[in-house]
């Protein structure tokens, strides 16, 4: 393949870029172009003004609209209103009139075109540096017609990566619990949607209350717990086939499940006569191992991306705090010492940070800290916030939020920098989000 396969190793068969040398991206980097980038680390000082012209061809304006929404919600870009465009006759194969775009202070411009070739939708686009007057990126994607939104997400990820230097996160999905009914007779169904709230579908019928669903790293399976009158059980559902399988665990209460990074085991907590401890079970061999043995509550375990460490919630020290240990249960250490009650620790995709929930002064908070518990930083606070989950690139955290007493839970996002707090485009009541890796 070409240089493009090096740049985008994850591009799938489904979206196999028939993209050819046709648009040799990066061919000529000018000095001016080197200045055109966005910092995602320090809460961006200034969003980059970018214009995305409607693509020509099938789904053209919808694709451009989805790209605009993605980039706008990232908080890193100031997406120009198409009504302000001076040049309306853009063509993917012709250099734009840069001077026109500079009048509206647009720094980056995206022009695209779609067409149907052999029954498949093919979309090509170019990203232009308006001030450098040069092409920064040119790519083409192909897929089935009904999958056009994924092309929009792939385009968004490519632009994000080119301009920020970071891997994108737009072509990903979120599993969550869709809630309905009153507060005292809550219906909780397993649901999955695109990260931008599109294409929602339900995987359970609401007979049981679904809690804390999470993807495996491969994105093909979801593990969750389901509460019924007589107990709570862990299930694994395969997304493609829809097949559900209960994980056999002794006792009638097993919950707080997550896949291990290799997808081969689940780590969870289970009740033994009122004592809740952390366990790990291999889905391949069925082997069950107990990792904590303490009369206190030990729950919400999560294994680090490299498989070497586990963080979990425990009240063994008298108050609820976050602890760490080696993957075999040895080397126990307490990670949080501050005021308040700490719980639901979750590793970042790179394994460098841990997101958590804290209760303090009658409020709930979402925060992040280094893997050793240092450099604690609070990102969001409300009457209730809990259940943080990381975007695949580790730049955004999604969580459940109830703004005030009696409010329905909804899904919100905040940048790890602490900026860009906003409600997810999913408008209905929702809780317990679990973000997938970027799709293959």
């Amino acid at each position, binding site marked *: 393949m070409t240089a493009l396969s090096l740049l985008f190793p994850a591009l799938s068969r489904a979206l196999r870029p028939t993209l050819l040398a046709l648009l040799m991206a990066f061919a000529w980097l000018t000095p001016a172009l080197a200045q055109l980038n966005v910092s995602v680390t320090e809460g961006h000082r200034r969003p980059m003004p970018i214009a995305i012209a409607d693509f020509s061809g099938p789904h053209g304006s919808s694709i451009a609209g989805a790209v605009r929404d993605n980039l706008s919600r990232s908080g890193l870009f100031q997406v120009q209103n198409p009504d302000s465009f001076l040049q309306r006759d853009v063509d993917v194969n012709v250099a734009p009139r840069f001077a026109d775009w500079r009048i509206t202070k647009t720094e980056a411009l995206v022009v695209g075109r779609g067409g149907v070739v052999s029954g498949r939708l093919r979309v090509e686009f170019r990203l232009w540096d308006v001030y450098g007057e040069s092409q920064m990126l040119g790519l083409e994607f192909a897929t089935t017609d009904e*999958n056009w939104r994924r092309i929009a997400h792939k385009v968004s990820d490519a632009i994000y990566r080119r301009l920020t230097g970071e891997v994108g996160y737009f072509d990903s999905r979120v599993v969550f619990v869709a809630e309905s009914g*009153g*507060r*005292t007779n*809550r219906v*909780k169904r397993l649901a*999955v949607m695109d990260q931008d709230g599109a*294409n929602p*579908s*339900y*995987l*359970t*019928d609401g*007979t*049981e*209350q679904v*809690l*804390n669903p999470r993807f495996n790293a491969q994105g093909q399976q979801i593990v969750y717990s*389901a*509460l*019924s*009158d*007589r*107990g*709570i059980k862990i*299930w694994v559902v395969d*997304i493609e*086939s*829809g*097949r*559900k399988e209960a994980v056999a665990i002794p006792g*009638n*209460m097993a*919950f*707080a499940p997550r896949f291990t990074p290799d997808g081969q085991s689940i780590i969870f*907590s289970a*009740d033994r*006569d*009122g*004592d*809740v401890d952390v366990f790990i079970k291999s889905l391949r061999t069925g082997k069950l191992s107990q990792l904590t043995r303490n009369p206190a*509550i030990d*729950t*919400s375990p999560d294994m680090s991306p490299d498989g070497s460490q586990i963080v979990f*919630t425990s009240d063994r020290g008298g108050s*609820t705090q976050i602890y760490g240990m080696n993957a075999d249960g040895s080397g126990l250490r307490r990670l949080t010492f501050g005021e308040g*009650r700490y*719980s*639901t620790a979750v590793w970042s995709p790179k394994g460098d940070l841990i997101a958590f*929930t804290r*209760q303090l002064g009658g409020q709930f908070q979402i925060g992040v800290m280094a893997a050793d518990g240092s450099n604690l930083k609070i990102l969001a606070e409300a009457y*209730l916030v*809990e*259940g943080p989950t990381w975007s695949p690139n580790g730049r955004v955290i999604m969580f459940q939020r109830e703004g005030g*007493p*009696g409010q329905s839970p909804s899904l919100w996002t905040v940048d790890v920098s602490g900026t860009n707090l906003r409600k997810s485009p999913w408008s209905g009541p929702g*809780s*317990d989000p679990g973000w997938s890796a970027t799709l293959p």
Partner: protein
Amino acid sequence: MTFTQSQTPASGLKVRSLALMLVSSLALVACASTKTATPPIAETSTPVAIANSEAAPTIAQEAPKTSAPVASAPLPAVTVSGTTINAEAARVQESLSPYASLAEAGERIFFPTDRFDLTDEARSILTRQAAWIKANPGKRVLIAGNCDERGTREYNLALGARRASAARDFLAGLGVDTDRVETVSYGKERPIDERPSAEGWAVNRNAQTMLLD
């Protein structure tokens, strides 16, 4: 991409939730009398005259909180022939309970914030439950631990398990066979009081004992 939706298997189990009690009923159970506690009713198949109010387990220190007395009307005398079969004996024992039902004994006990130890009031209600359970040998119960919404979901599932277990262990200490007691936690998923206030949270921090069919 489409998803096939397959049905989550129904549990096939039925829990008979006895008359959902509201807060006010908490006070109701703490009445009866202030006499010293009597031992649980002995299981016997000999003819018994009556289970009267003296046989009721009582609350040690607590004064009656409401004027509504527990309805523990004297039962008619029962005579049993010497050849009573087991089922007959069970029926007789059932009639020995000072409470007509588990609900009358008191279904729910309540807990302070983030605690699972039993208050005096909780102990007295559990003592009454124990009397009913022991007087109804054919019955099994499910104790469900519940929490208020001021904790994280997974932690609350664990806390509810502790509350249910604390109740079960107390019943066991009174001689209830633990094979007849199941426990479960509903965490913060099944509140009974909608109020997002200290009063509502207090009601939702409980362990409920339900009759299993």
